[in-house]
């Protein structure tokens, strides 16, 4: 981690205010100060409507902060124009629910960013796509369109689409939402492998950030946690600090959902 600390921060937010995608004049989080070093795994927790998705999109450089500064890879995101496309491709983003292209099959969805960015034909991209689909156990669904795919596999296909360009900074919006127990387990393990350096990435570790409305599945000694509540962003630290936090929102996010034990 010492060498990682010497690297510039992946993202650095200073006094940043986060607005929503739907209405740029509406601020959902104020005065965010946040810095992510290469190789870290961040879990951003918050209740529904706390601004998690907008926060994550701002962290990906997809939304501009309403005020303050947001630097991704050392560059202000408002300069992330067409000319800096190469910088943008270092970021992988997985939307809640996947948001796959409904007209394309799973293989076409995964191939599209690679084909578009590297001007490859379907045949030229097929080897890399097939390899990634195999790694993610999606090969049987390669020719299936998203509408004929269960939500579990749609989420996994969306992750494959974000990974095909081999990003360095991977952001996932509520990745466990709607997943069955087996798929949750697989995803948690896979994200862990990505952070440590998956062989598909040649062992290169990824920096990961996820959002969640339930902290419990993310319990892990190596992960860092933060919470969004009442328009405030608070860094909690490691898991032991999460457990000892007196923050009301954290206690709610750690609590068993009502009726879960019935």
């Amino acid at each position, binding site marked *: 981690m010492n060498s990682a600390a010497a690297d510039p921060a992946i993202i650095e937010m200073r006094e940043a205010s986060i607005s929503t995608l739907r209405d740029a004049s509406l601020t959902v989080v104020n005065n965010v100060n946040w810095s992510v070093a290469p190789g870290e795994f961040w879990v951003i927790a918050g209740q529904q409507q706390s601004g998690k998705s907008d926060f994550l999109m701002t962290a990906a450089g997809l939304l501009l902060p309403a005020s303050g500064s947001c630097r991704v890879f050392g560059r202000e995101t408002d300069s992330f124009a067409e000319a800096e496309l190469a910088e943008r491709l270092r970021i992988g983003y997985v939307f809640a629910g996947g*948001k796959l292209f409904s007209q394309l099959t799973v293989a076409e969805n995964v191939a599209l960013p690679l084909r578009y960015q590297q001007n490859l034909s379907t045949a030229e991209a097929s080897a890399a796509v097939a390899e990634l689909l195999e790694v993610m156990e999606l090969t049987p669904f390669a020719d299936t369109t998203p509408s004929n795919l269960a939500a579990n596999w749609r989420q996994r296909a969306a992750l494959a689409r974000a990974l095909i360009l081999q990003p360095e900074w991977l952001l996932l919006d509520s990745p466990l939402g709607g997943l069955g127990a087996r798929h949750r387990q697989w995803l948690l393990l896979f994200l862990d492998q990505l952070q440590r350096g998956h062989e598909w990435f040649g062992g290169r570790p990824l920096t990961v950030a996820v959002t969640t409305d339930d902290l419990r599945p993310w319990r892990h000694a190596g992960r860092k946690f933060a919470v969004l509540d009442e328009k405030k962003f608070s860094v909690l630290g490691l898991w032991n600090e999460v457990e000892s936090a007196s923050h009301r929102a954290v206690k709610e996010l750690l609590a068993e959902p009502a009726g879960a034990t019935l």
Partner: protein
Amino acid sequence: MRGNLAKTFQLTNIQVFRRAAMPKSYTDQLGRKLFLALLTLQGLGAFALITIGVILNKFNVAQSVMRPRIRHEINRAGVSLLPMFFFVALALGFLVIGQTVSALAKVGATDYLGSTMVIVIVRELGPLLTAMLVLARVGTANVIELGTARALGEVEALEALGIDPVHYLIVPRVIGMALGIFSLTIYLIIGALASGYLFAFLQDVPLTPGDYFKQITEALSWLDFALLALKTTAFGFFIAVVTCYHGLAQPLRLEDVSRVAVRAVTQGVFVCVLVDAVFIVLYLVT
């Protein structure tokens, strides 16, 4: 997305105007309609300019992806509509041209046949009818497809992957529709003129095929060909821009899509008539 697309196209003023309660006074209603029309015009103008800019700047970008998409759109707005246009050409020939030829022959005015056909079919009916049919068949599909993609967040997903939505979604539709309307108009004109003569022949109109087509070719000038190409391309461009603008450029919910499709078709018809009027002036001037 990226702050830029949203800021350029969201035009929240339009949403505010549309969703506000109806004003009670007629003058206020008129004022609101006027402002809405101006805002829509501003949005359409900006969208058209951006589309032209993207076509010019990204002509060579991702050709492996874009060429098949453009071919698909040409097929959708052109080739796949050929059977329908064959039927429409026959109908147009039988219903309009055949009767016109027959009527002109009865009053001994067959000398005017060529110029009448060129004005009615080549300059006006052919291009306008083609544009209307393509608007109904493909333009509506454009709004629904793009509106659904926007409502489901697929446009944001494109941006997140570093893919320009205007380049990926709009450019193929604009090129496909422009080329489609141009080609279909040519087929419609040829088909209608031929079937029109067939109808006149069946009515024993004393006119040989040679005379009929000679009159038409003599009435045509190079300007007709040039303006026909320009006009049909303009129809295709504007129909694509209007339908894509309504589908893509405003934040939509799924329940908005059908309403927006109706609005886009209405504006598409209006724009076609406007373009047609501009070309009538051009014909008169030249």
